[in-house]
């Protein structure tokens, strides 16, 4: 049990337990705030996998962007005054059974297939420079398409969310 293993288990527990809270709590605000801890735990796992740029991007985009958007959505679509930010669930038992089967078979499959995977021998280096070079050479087309997608999403979201003036 080295330091790496201990840190992995800390981050894995943070991730999985807060994901449990996201899925099982009845209070929407609790779900949103535990999603924050899930994202942080995933960022920690990225650091352990020596993906430093991705960990920072995860915190910036997920925590700083998507989570704030989700919180705005929660606040704007509930009557906050009535302090009734609860929500119901449906079909819990069949979903639980199916999801447990899926999780068990996936975990068993991963365990039996990759049980003795070789540990990486390559040194840990900063990935930012290499990622930037890859985005500007081999992944040029997907990069440009992604920028167009973001522009379209920006305009589309702004137009869709705009309050229309009595257009019936």
């Amino acid at each position, binding site marked *: 049990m080295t330091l790496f293993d201990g840190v992995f288990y800390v981050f894995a527990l943070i991730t999985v337990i807060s*994901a449990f809270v996201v899925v099982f709590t009845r209070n929407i605000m609790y779900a949103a705030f535990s999603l924050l801890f899930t994202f942080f735990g995933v960022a920690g796992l990225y650091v352990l996998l020596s993906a430093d740029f991705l960990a920072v991007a995860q915190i910036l985009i997920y925590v700083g962007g998507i989570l704030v958007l989700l919180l705005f959505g929660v606040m704007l679509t509930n009557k906050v005054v009535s302090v009734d930010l609860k929500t119901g669930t449906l079909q819990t038992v069949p979903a639980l059974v199916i999801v447990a089967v899926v999780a068990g078979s996936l975990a068993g499959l991963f365990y039996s297939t990759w049980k003795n995977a070789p540990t990486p021998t390559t040194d840990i280096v900063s990935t930012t420079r290499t990622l930037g070079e890859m985005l500007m050479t081999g992944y040029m087309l997907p990069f440009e398409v992604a920028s167009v*997608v973001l522009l379209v999403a920006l305009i589309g979201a702004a137009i869709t969310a705009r309050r229309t003036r009595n257009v019936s």
Partner: protein
Amino acid sequence: MDFNEFFTWLQHVQLAHFLIVSALLFSLGIYGIVTRKNAILVLMGIELVLNAANINLVAFSRYGGMNLDGQVAAVFVIILAAAEAAIALAIILNIYHRFQTVNIDEVSALKE
């Protein structure tokens, strides 16, 4: 399954540990998508599933000889998740203005 072997395996973190964490996260996300009534909580389930996929991509990128193609794919997943969250929340806000609810059971028509 030999339990002694399993416990020694547990103490030595490698590829399969990350994959199993991502499998758990994926299943929890699917559970959230399937069972929740509130549309925003369904979105949160989708984010969990995307994060699980990202962990898989980065783990294989690390344990496949530090091949960074997986991390580039993860970057694109994050970009698309941001776009998807923005669009989906805009749609949910419109639904709320029109139907005064975000319960996806009650929103089954495109118009009133």
